[in-house]
């Protein structure tokens, strides 16, 4: 792999706090190595800003290995940047060319208000999990792990849904700002396992109700979420959620 250096123009959303109106500001960065990660490039910019007595760009990040789900950033019109099945922290600068202009925006959704610059409040996702994204089993209640054999395909499909890192890219990508891919990943993860069966009806009902309450839009099956998901969670999970919902509403008592 040939390494090269590049100069870039960065157009970045700046917003002091939740109540500030915010707007774009442009920056120049020089001699960025193609081996850097995207966030390391922002580190370079921030060092530069601190040296120039300016406020550095605030952005969320933590593990920088693509699993914690903390990093966000809407880069050049796509959540987490251009690479497929990727998070911002794993995006590397060889994806960019010398002289390019890179536009960086926060996740945009009314349910995710901006806290500062590129950082948004994703606590609605936690509250959706609180509404039912769990199996009600207290510590110590468990029986032997092998007492309940689970079909390997189901276990694998459940795992594929459970890989969701809760980053919110699906919301950012969706034209409706819908959290359905996030929601459905959890519903599918638990619905595919026998342990999840006792609560399957109330779970899907309550989680959907919470999503609506948090101010996310409705799903229109455009598929933008699936195309952008860093863990490539399948949109078929949404269909599964719909089925869960439909069957829950059919068997409801009242």
């Amino acid at each position: 792999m040939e390494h090269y250096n590049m100069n870039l123009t960065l157009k970045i959303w700046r917003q002091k706090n939740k109540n500030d109106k915010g707007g774009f500001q442009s920056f120049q960065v020089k001699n960025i190595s193609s081996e850097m990660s995207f966030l390391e490039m922002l580190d370079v910019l921030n060092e530069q800003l601190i040296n120039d007595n300016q406020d550095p760009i605030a952005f969320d990040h933590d593990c920088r290995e693509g699993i914690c789900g903390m990093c966000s950033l809407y880069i050049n019109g796509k959540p987490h940047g251009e690479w497929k099945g990727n998070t911002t922290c794993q995006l590397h600068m060889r994806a960019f060319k010398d002289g390019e202009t890179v536009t960086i925006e926060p996740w945009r959704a009314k349910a995710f208000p901006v806290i500062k610059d590129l950082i948004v409040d994703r606590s609605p996702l936690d509250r959706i999990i609180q509404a039912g994204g769990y199996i009600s089993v207290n510590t110590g209640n468990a029986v032997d792990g092998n007492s309940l054999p689970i079909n390997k395909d189901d276990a694998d499909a459940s795992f594929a849904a459970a890989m969701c890192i809760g980053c919110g890219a699906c919301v950012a990508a969706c034209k409706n700002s819908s959290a359905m891919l996030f929601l459905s990943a959890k519903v599918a993860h638990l619905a595919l396992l026998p342990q999840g069966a006792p609560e399957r009806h109330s779970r899907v009902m309550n989680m959907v109700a919470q999503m609506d309450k948090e101010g996310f839009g409705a799903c229109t099956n455009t598929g933008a979420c699936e195309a952008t998901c860093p863990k490539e969670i399948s949109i078929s999970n949404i269909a599964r959620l719909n089925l869960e919902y439909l069957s829950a509403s059919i068997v409801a008592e009242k």
Partner: protein
Amino acid sequence: MTWKQVFTSSVGKKLVMGFTGIFLILFLIVHVGLNACIWADDGGKMFNAGAHFMGANWVPRILEVGLFLGLILHIIQGLMLVFYNRSKRGIQYAVDYGNKGSKWYSRSMGLLGTIILLFLVLHLSNFWFPNRSNQGFLLGEEINLYQKMEEVFSVLWVVIVYVLGCISLAYHLAHGFQSAFKTFGVYNKRWHSIISTLGFVFAIIVPLMFALMPLSFYFGWIS
């Protein structure tokens, strides 16, 4: 969970769209089948016979009420969903995600639906309304719909509007058909690939046949 809660949730609203959409798709099959009789080359005899059954019999006339209710529900719910969803973003992106992640028509169902609605206004005022008013909105005397078609489709701009309406319908169906089944919970790849293929074929063939009708009259392909 009451029925009201079920159908007013974001998933429930989609269910309403799906159910009414499939109902309208079924109607399209009837409509296109019946209208295809114009190509029988019998001066409209077979077509008018079919049209007579639809217009002068209580059974289809009662179903017609259901059709309108379904259509109105689909339109109102659809428009409300468009505005509901649109209000969820707040500030728009400076750089749009565009077609990188989804098909343009899947994101434009509201627009396509609105074009179809405008076309429908013209379409109903061309055929349905004159006929029903002639009948006194009951089971009265019908007009000769075949002749009416000849007359309406002799005007170029009308033909163009009809063709545009059919194109909109094609794209609307291309997304709507398979999306409805996703909403009903068809998640397995095996069924989904069958349904999306079927939907695509349907979305091409049915609007194409509809579009050929005004064209056939205008260009005199039928006698």
